[in-house]
C-alpha cells in the first residue's frame, strides 16, 4: 500500500513541510537524532496526532479527511511503545485487540489470532500474561497484534529499543519476511542500513536527505545530523553498509585513552 505525505506541518516536534513516499512492498526507514520528530511524524500517520496542515495519503485516501478512525486502522498496523501492561491481558487477548477495527465473527478472530501468533513463533505463549514477558517477547507479541490487524501498511516506532542484539535481528527479520509495506522509525543506524530499502533522515522536524542507505549514510551527513565521526565500510558478514562511530571532538585524548 502506497504512502504519500506532502507538506506536513504538525503542532508538536517542530515537524514542518515534511514530504515522503513509501512505494508498495518497500521497507522504508526514518532516522534522525532524538527529538528530530520521527515518532511525531508517525503519529500523524496513524491518526494519533492531527496535523495543522498537509496531506497524508495511504492507499490513495486521505487518512484524516476521507477515512474514519476505523477505516484507517484497517489499513495501518502499528507497533509502538506506549506504556502499560494493560489490565493483565494474556498474549492471545492482547493480539486479539488487533481485531478492534474489524467486524468479524469471534471464531474468525480466534483463527486470525492463532495464525498471527504462529507467524511470530509465539503459539506456545498464547496463555501467558503479557506483563510477564521479556522485552523481546513483548515486541514480538505487539508485532503479532499488528499482523492480526491485517493492515496493508506496517508502521513501526523504534521497535528494537531495549532489545538485545539477537532479538533485534529476529524482529526486523520477521518484519521483512511479512513482505508488507513498512515505514519504521529506527534508532540503530546499522540496523537501518541492513534492513531498509530506502531511508529518510529527519533533523529538527525537516527531511534533510533521502535515498538508499548507501547514498544517505555518508560521513558528511552523519557528522552534520548526528554530530559524530563515522567510518562507512562493508559488513563482512552481510555485505551491507557497516558504520563505526567516534565522537566528533576527540575526547579520548583528554582522558588519556588510546584511540
Amino acid at each position: 500500500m502506497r504512502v504519500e505525505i506532502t507538506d506536513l506541518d504538525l503542532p508538536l516536534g517542530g515537524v514542518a513541510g515534511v514530504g515522503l513516499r513509501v512505494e508498495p512492498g518497500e521497507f522504508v526507514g526514518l532516522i534522525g537524532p532524538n527529538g528530530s520528530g520521527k515518532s511525531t511524524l508517525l503519529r500523524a500517520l496513524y491518526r494519533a496526532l492531527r496535523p495543522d496542515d498537509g496531506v497524508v495519503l495511504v492507499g490513495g485516501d486521505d487518512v484524516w479527511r476521507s477515512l474514519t478512525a476505523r477505516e484507517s486502522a484497517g489499513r495501518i498496523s502499528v507497533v509502538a511503545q506506549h506504556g502499560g501492561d494493560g489490565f493483565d491481558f494474556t498474549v492471545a487477548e492482547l493480539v486479539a485487540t488487533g481485531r478492534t477495527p474489524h467486524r468479524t465473527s469471534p471464531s474468525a478472530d480466534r483463527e486470525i489470532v492463532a495464525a498471527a501468533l504462529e507467524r511470530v513463533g509465539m503459539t506456545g505463549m498464547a496463555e501467558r500474561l503479557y506483563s510477564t514477558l521479556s522485552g523481546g517477547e513483548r515486541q514480538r507479541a505487539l508485532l503479532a497484534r499488528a499482523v492480526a490487524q491485517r493492515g496493508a501498511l506496517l508502521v513501526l516506532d523504534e521497535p528494537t529499543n531495549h532489545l538485545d542484539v539477537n532479538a533485534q535481528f529476529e524482529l526486523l527479520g520477521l518484519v521483512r519476511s511479512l513482505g508488507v509495506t513498512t515505514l519504521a522509525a529506527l534508532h540503530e543506524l546499522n540496523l537501518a542500513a541492513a534492513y531498509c530499502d530506502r531511508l529518510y533522515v529527519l533533523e529538527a522536524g525537516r527531511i534533510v536527505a533521502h535515498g538508499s542507505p548507501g547514498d544517505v549514510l555518508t560521513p558528511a551527513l552523519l557528522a552534520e545530523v548526528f554530530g559524530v565521526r563515522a567510518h562507512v565500510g562493508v559488513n563482512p558478514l552481510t555485505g551491507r553498509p557497516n558504520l563505526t562511530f567516534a565522537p566528533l571532538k576527540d575526547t579520548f585524548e583528554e582522558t588519556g585513552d588510546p584511540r
Partner: protein
Amino acid sequence: MTSSRLISGRRYPLAVALLLVAVPLAMVAAVSLGAVDLPAADVWHTVVAHLTTGRRPVDVSGIDDEIIWNSRAPRTVLALVAGAGLAVAGAVLQAVVRNPLADPYVLGVASGASLAAVAVITLGGIVGLGVPGAAFVGACATLALVLLLGSRRGTLAPTRLILAGVALSYLLQGATGYLQLRAQPGQLSGILFWLLGSVSGAGWDDLAVPCAVVVACTAWLTFQGKRLNAMLLGDETAAMLGVAVHRFRLTLLAVSALLTAAVISVAGGIAFVGLIVPHAVRLLAGPDHRRALPLIALGGGLFLVLADLAARTLSPPLELPLGILTAAIGAPFFLWLLRREGPVS
C-alpha cells in the same frame, strides 16, 4: 507464568450458567426470608400468578401477597438492577479513566445526586421534582460540570477528569453536610438512609426507568467490548486500533453516568459494589470486556440481592443501610482476592 484465572476458556459458559441459576434462587430466597418467613413455594406461586394473570393466587393470604408482591419483590428487583448497574458503570469508568480505583462515583455524580436529594428532603421540592427526579438531575448536572472543568483544548485527559470529579465531590459533600446540619430531627434518618443507600423504599412504579436503563446500557456496552479493551491499553494505542478516542470516551462517560444516575436516584449512594465487583470478576475471568461485562452485571446484581437480604435479617427488627453491608461483605472478599496468588489489575 500462565494466567491463573479460575474462569478461563471452557469454564466461562459454566460460570454464566451458574450465575443465571444463582440469581433467581437468591431472589426467591430474598423474597421469602425476612421479619416474617414465607415458604418459597408461596413466593414462587405469587410471583408467577401476578406475572401471568395480574392477580394474587387463591391459596396465598392477602397479607402474604402484600409482603411478597408489593414489598419484598420490588426491592429485590431493585437490588438486582442497582447492583448490576453500579458494577457495570464501575467497570466502564475503570477502563475509561484507566484507574483501578475508579468507581461509579469518581466523577462526583453521586455527590451531585446526594446534594439534590438532601436538598429536596430538607428544603422541600423546589422545582416540583421528587427525591429521585432531583437526584437524577443533580447527577447529570454534576457530570456536565466535571466534563467542562476537566476538558482543555478539546481533550479529556483521564487524570484531569478524576481531579475535577474529586474536587467537585468535596465541594458538593460540604454543601450536603451543611444541609444536614440544618435538617429537622425527623428528616435525619431519611437523609442517612439515602446517603448510605437503600432499596427499601422501592415500589414497582420506581423500577421502570432503572430497569430499562440498566438493561439497555449493559447490552450496548457489552457490544462495545472490543473498543473498551482497546481503551484499557491507552489513548495512543486505542487510536491506532481505530477508536475515535475522544468521542468514544465522552460517550462512555455519558452512558456510565446515566447508569449511575438511574440507579442512585432510586437506591441512593450504595458504596463498594461498583468498585469491587468489576475487580473480582477481572481477577477471576480476565479483563476482556466481552466476557467480563455479562459476569459483572450478574455478579453485581447477585451481590446486592444477598447484601439486601442480610441487611434485613441480620439484626431484626433493625434494618441496616446497604452501604454498611456492602462494605462489610465486600472489603474482606476483595482483600482475599488480592492476597490470592496472581497479578493485580
